[in-house]
């Protein structure tokens, strides 16, 4: 992390109860969300090419350690993650003045799982990032790769490299240079026949263990105990884990995210059984984009078309 960023975070700390940033993960090329309360802890903060977690998940007050009513929290947000804050503000989940946001420009994050197959990413002994080359030593095998080949899918399609809503911006803003479309993966799915799509999703849902990590890591899912996928009376979903109940779980969730998903892809990243579960809300997003030109969390103050009403809709 640059000295400037560290100094700024230390400067903000007296104003906030805690500041959320990134700290060391289980190895040198993984980070983890870090909550700090004291200035000396700033030294443990990281800002590098491995800061994938969307810290906006901690913006809804019910999803983070409580603070007193007159206190605020600080956090660092990437461009994609900041869309969640815009959406949450629009939904009235958090008050703007309760957040102190540090804006940054993000060069794209590295997905080390893309190295799997070449090396065992669970047995990393050494890793070095030098300019555009990531060299990783794992279990006696070494691999060097161009980081442009290791970027997360969402980073390749990044339209918002700069934080969209912030209290202060550190560093220079960059311009977006998407190398593919954000809806490309959805378009590929749409090309399948209905039967093929059904088979595709049934295979994916058959693996789901319903750990609910996709839901809990989602910054827009904040219903907690009141989530209808959790309530036992009335019971909307079945407790048992099988393809059909899993499908029900994920489809309900996708509908609840329609026009609200901010495309951070965290649900798919955390899935312990590799289900590309972000494709479901993304499909809903594509529909909303095609019909209403709507992209959740991109314009502060605007209302989602599904929460608004016009006498005449142009495209309906």
């Amino acid at each position, binding site marked *: 992390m640059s000295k400037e960023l560290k100094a700024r975070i230390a400067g903000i700390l007296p104003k906030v109860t805690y500041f959320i940033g990134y700290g060391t*993960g289980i190895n040198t090329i993984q980070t983890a969300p870090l909550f700090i309360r004291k200035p000396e802890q700033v030294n443990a903060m990281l800002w590098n090419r491995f800061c994938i977690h969307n810290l906006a998940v901690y913006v809804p007050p019910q999803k983070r*350690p409580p603070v007193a009513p007159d206190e605020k929290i600080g956090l660092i947000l990437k461009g994609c993650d900041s869309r969640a804050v815009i959406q949450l503000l629009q939904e009235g989940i958090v008050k703007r003045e309760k957040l102190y946001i540090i804006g940054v420009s993000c060069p794209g994050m590295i997905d080390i799982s893309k190295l799997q197959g070449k090396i065992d990413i669970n047995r990393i002994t050494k890793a070095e990032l030098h300019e555009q080359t990531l060299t990783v030593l794992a279990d006696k095998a070494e691999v060097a790769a161009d980081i442009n080949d290791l970027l997360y899918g969402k980073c390749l399609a990044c339209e918002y490299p700069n934080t969209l809503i912030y209290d202060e911006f550190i560093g220079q803003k960059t311009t977006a240079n998407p190398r593919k479309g954000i809806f490309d993966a959805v378009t590929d799915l749409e090309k399948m026949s209905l039967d093929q799509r059904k088979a595709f999703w049934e295979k994916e849902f058959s693996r789901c263990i319903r750990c609910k990590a996709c839901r809990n890591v989602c910054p827009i899912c904040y219903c907690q105990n009141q989530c209808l996928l959790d309530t036992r009376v009335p019971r909307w979903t079945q407790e048992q*884990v099988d393809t059909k109940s899993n499908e029900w779980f994920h489809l309900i969730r996708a509908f609840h995210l329609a026009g609200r998903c901010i495309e951070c892809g965290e649900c798919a990243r*955390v899935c312990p059984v590799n289900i590309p579960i972000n494709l479901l809300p993304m499909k809903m997003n594509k529909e909303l984009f095609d019909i209403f030109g709507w992209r959740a969390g991109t314009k502060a103050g605007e209302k989602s078309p599904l929460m608004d009403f016009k006498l005449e809709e142009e495209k309906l």
Partner: protein
Amino acid sequence: MPKLIPQNKLKDWLDNLAQTHEVWVPQDQDGMCVIDLYQAEREINLESRTRFSAKELVFPQTERLFKYKYEKDKDNPEHVSVKLQTENNVPKRVAFGIPPCDVAGIEIISKVFDDKGYKDPYFKKRREALSIVALGCQHPENACFCTTVGGSPSKAPGADILLTPVGDGYAVEVLTAKGQALIPNDLFDKLADVDAPDVEKAQQKAGKLLPAPMVISPSAQTAQALLKAFASPYWNEATAACLSCGICTFACPTCHCFTIVDEKCGRCGERMRCWDACMFPLYTLEASGHNPRLAQSQRYRNRISHKYSYMITNNNILGCTGCGRCIKLCPAGIDLRRIVEKLIPKSE
């Protein structure tokens, strides 16, 4: 004297076992290594760690306990009887090539489901029908810490057979009579012997692959340490990022909490036992609406304290095998080792 089975003869053994057993073996599927039913045409993978533990073989995520049906008496419609139908068929299974930490996991939950005080018939049936061929671990992962909790990468108490990689094959040590029954004589008679000291040497080498900066014993002091830390503000700090999902519990080889539900449709239904997770807020929600563990720090504290304190008090064992899955898969990057190291004083 142990036999040495070369890599290329493993398939013959597995094919032989598959004639009489359901053989479950690690294999690659959908971009991960999973323990799944052996099929002759599919490659097995004894190099990688399976995404989840083998506990599903004795404690499935969804267990159908019985089916029920209400029947009305035609002559006396007020009288309704219930017919129950249990599912008794538990196939004979072999868990083949599972690591010592997974064997330890099965041993630990056996203490809960099949101990002096309580015997769970569903678990017992599955455990008795399961034979374990463990494979000594050669490649600890970044998140591994079995030696810290008293385990070993190369010994697997509770297994029926232990395989130890030696050269281009595996030394086969038969540990129990159940294990002996898995040895096809016509195949093994043709195999070469391997010297016991050579096996011992290979195991010692593997044991050194995973340095243990501290060793936690299932002692009263360990149990006390966490009780003392019950009100520590450290829990808030360490678990601030926790998202209350169920990955750590579901992936854990020793987590064994469940809920029982009836799925009813008309007059018929099924009673099922499904995994639950103490990380879910609903787990402790009481009928009154009160929740004694409302904060995620309280839930996380429970999970750690259960493994490192309550299980010592109740069962004289540590409830953690050090497999590291909760660390590796945590969406918030929470490292259980850091918490445990902080709260439990180093024992000599």
